[in-house]
C-alpha cells in the first residue's frame, strides 16, 4: 500500500484509482516472432540439405575422419601451431618490450621487424626460408669478421620443411603478437607502475606481477584470434609439401577424387580445434577478469548446475509451496 497521502488538490483533479491488484502484462513483440520463424525455417532448410543431399558423401567423410594418415596430419598441424604459437608469442613479448624501451635503437629494430614481416605475404616468407640455401649455401656460427667458427652446416640440410615452416610461421606470428602485447601493456594505467615502484617492487616483478596480469585482459581476445588464425594458417605450409592436415587430405583426394568430402574432413577438424581453443579462451579470460568486474559471471557449467539445483531438484517441493 502506498504510504503517500493524496495531494490536497483532490477536489479539482480526479482521484487516482488503485491499480495495486492489477496483473502486469509485458509488451508483445510480433515482429520478433516473425523473424524467429523465418530464421528457423532457413536453418532447417540448410540442415535438411546437408543430411539429404547424397553428394556431401557423409559416409566418405566418416571413413576418412579418423584414418591414420589424417590423424598423423592433424598431429603435425597441432605441433606446428603449438611450436610457432609459443615461440611467436615469446618473441613477440621481447619485441614489445624492445618497442617500449627507452633505447632508440631497440625501438627502431622492433619497429622494422614488425614492418617487414607484416608487409610480406606469409607464402613468400615460407618459400624464402625454404630456399635460403640458394641465397646462403652454408650457415655458420662464429665470431664475426674472424675465421673462428663454432659450428657450420649446409643450409639445405639445416632448413628442413619443418624448420622452414616453423621459422616462417614464428617470425610472422611474432610481428603480429608484438603489437597485441604492446597494446595490452599500454592499456594499463601508468599509476600502477608508479605505485609499484613507490612500494619498492623491482622492475621485473612490476612487469610480471602488476602490469602483465592486467594487460592480459586486453591481450587475450586478440591473442586467441591470432592462435585460431594460426591453426588454419598452418594449412599454407602445404606449399612446402609438409604433411600437415591440409596437405594430407590433398594427397588423398588427388588419389581418390573425393575432393569435397575430404576438404570437409579437414574443415571439421579445424572446427574441433577452434572449438576447444574457444573453451580455453573463455576460462582463461575469466581467470584474468578477476577484480576487473564486480562479480564474475557464472560459467556454463555452474549455470547448468544451478538450473538443475533449482528446477530439477526443487521440483517435487514446488507443488508443496
Amino acid at each position: 500500500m502506498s504510504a503517500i497521502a493524496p495531494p490536497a488538490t483532490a477536489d479539482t483533479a480526479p482521484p487516482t484509482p488503485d491499480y495495486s491488484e492489477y496483473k502486469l502484462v509485458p509488451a508483445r513483440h510480433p515482429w520478433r516472432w516473425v523473424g524467429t520463424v523465418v530464421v528457423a525455417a532457413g536453418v532447417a532448410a540448410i540442415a535438411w540439405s546437408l543430411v539429404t543431399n547424397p553428394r556431401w558423401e557423409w559416409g566418405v567423410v566418416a571413413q576418412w575422419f579418423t584414418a591414420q594418415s589424417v590423424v598423423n596430419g592433424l598431429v603435425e598441424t597441432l605441433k606446428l601451431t603449438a611450436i610457432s604459437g609459443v615461440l611467436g608469442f615469446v618473441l613477440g613479448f621481447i619485441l614489445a618490450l624492445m618497442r617500449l624501451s627507452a633505447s632508440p635503437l631497440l625501438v627502431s629494430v622492433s619497429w622494422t621487424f614488425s614492418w617487414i614481416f607484416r608487409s610480406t605475404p606469409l607464402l613468400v616468407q615460407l618459400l624464402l626460408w625454404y630456399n635460403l640455401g640458394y641465397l646462403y649455401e652454408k650457415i655458420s656460427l662464429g665470431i664475426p669478421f674472424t675465421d673462428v667458427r663454432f659450428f657450420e652446416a649446409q643450409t639445405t640440410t639445416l632448413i628442413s620443411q619443418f624448420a622452414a615452416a616453423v621459422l616462417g610461421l614464428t617470425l610472422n606470428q611474432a610481428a603480429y603478437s608484438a603489437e597485441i602485447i604492446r597494446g595490452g601493456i599500454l592499456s594499463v594505467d601508468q599509476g600502477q607502475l608508479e605505485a609499484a615502484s613507490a612500494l619498492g617492487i623491482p622492475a621485473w616483478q612490476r612487469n610480471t606481477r602488476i602490469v602483465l596480469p592486467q594487460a592480459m585482459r586486453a591481450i587475450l581476445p586478440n591473442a586467441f584470434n591470432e592462435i585460431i588464425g594460426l591453426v588454419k594458417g598452418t594449412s599454407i605450409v602445404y606449399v612446402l609439401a609438409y604433411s600437415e592436415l591440409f596437405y594430407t587430405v590433398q594427397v588423398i583426394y588427388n588419389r581418390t577424387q573425393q575432393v569435397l568430402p575430404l576438404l570437409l574432413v579437414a574443415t571439421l577438424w579445424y572446427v574441433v580445434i577452434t572449438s576447444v581453443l574457444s573453451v580455453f579462451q573463455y576460462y582463461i579470460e575469466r581467470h584474468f577478469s578477476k577484480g576487473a568486474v564486480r562479480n564474475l559471471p557464472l560459467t556454463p557449467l555452474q549455470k547448468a548446475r544451478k538450473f538443475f539445483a533449482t528446477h530439477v531438484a526443487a521440483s517435487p517441493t514446488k507443488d508443496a509451496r
Partner: protein
Amino acid sequence: MSTIAARKESKTTAQAADEAPAETSAAASAGTTAARPATADRQATRGQVDITNVRKSFGATEVLKGVSLSVPPGGVAVIVGPSGSGKSTLLRTINHLEKVDGGYITIDGELVGYEVRGNKLHELREKDILKQRTNIGMVFQSFNLFPHLTALENVIEAPIVAQKRSKAEARKRGLELLDRVGLKDRADAYPRQLSGGQQQRVAIARALALDPKILLFDEPTSALDPELVNEVLDVIRELATSGTTLIVVTHEMGFARDVADTVVFMDDGLIVESGTPQDIFANPREERTRSFFSKVIEPAFNI
C-alpha cells in the same frame, strides 16, 4: 626560501644560517603552542626529512624553484597551495619518483636517490633506490590499488616481493593493518568492490605494510565523494599520533588546522611561508597566503 623546523634541534646548520630570525622564533614555538596532547606522546627517533634548495623543471616550466623544508621525526607537515604550485612534485621528489634537477633531499641524514663519490652526487642503482623507497610509504590521489589483487593481496604484495618476508607473516601483518584501517572484513574484496574511501584506506594499509619511517600523502581525499572524506582523514589523523613522519598535500584546510605541526603554503614553485596552523591560518604574514585562504576557507571558518 623558507625553512621550517617544528623542533629547533632538528635543523641542520646550513639551513639555520639561511633562516630569518622571525621564522626561527615561529618554529620554536610550534611544539609548545600546538594544542594537541597527542603530540607529546610521540617517541619518534627516525624519519627526519630535510629538503635543501630543490629545483625541478618540466621542459621549459620550472615547477620547483629552490625549495627547502625540514620535517622532524614524527612531525606532521601539511602542504597547501593553489594547483600548479608544485606541491605534488615536491612530494614526489621525496621518494625519488621525480628526479631533482638541483638541490638534495636527505632522510635521517641519508641522501635520497644519490650517493657521494668524490665531489659528485651519483644517482643510485635502481635496486638501491627501491630499497630506500621501502622506508617511504606513499598514498596517491587516485589510490592506484592493484585491481587484479584483493585488498589483502594489495597490502602483502610489497612485503613479500620487495622485502622477501614469508607469506604467512605478511598475511598476519596485513590483516592487522586492514583491521587498523577498519577493513578487516573486506580483506578478500577486490578494489572495484570497495567504495572510494575504503579503497584509499586499503592504500594506506598498503603503504604502512613496509613499516615506513615516512608517509607521503598526495591529495589523499581529492578523488573522494564529500561524505567519504572523513573516514580517510580519520585514519590519517590516527597515524599522526603514531610517531611516523607524515607529509600531506591536501586541500582540506580543517584537517590541516587539526593535525599539522607545520603548515606549508606553496605558490609558484616556492614556499611562501610556513608555520604552525595558528600562525598560517590566523595571522598569515604574506599577502599571497591571505588571498589564497580567503578563497578556499568559507567565511564561517575561524580559528
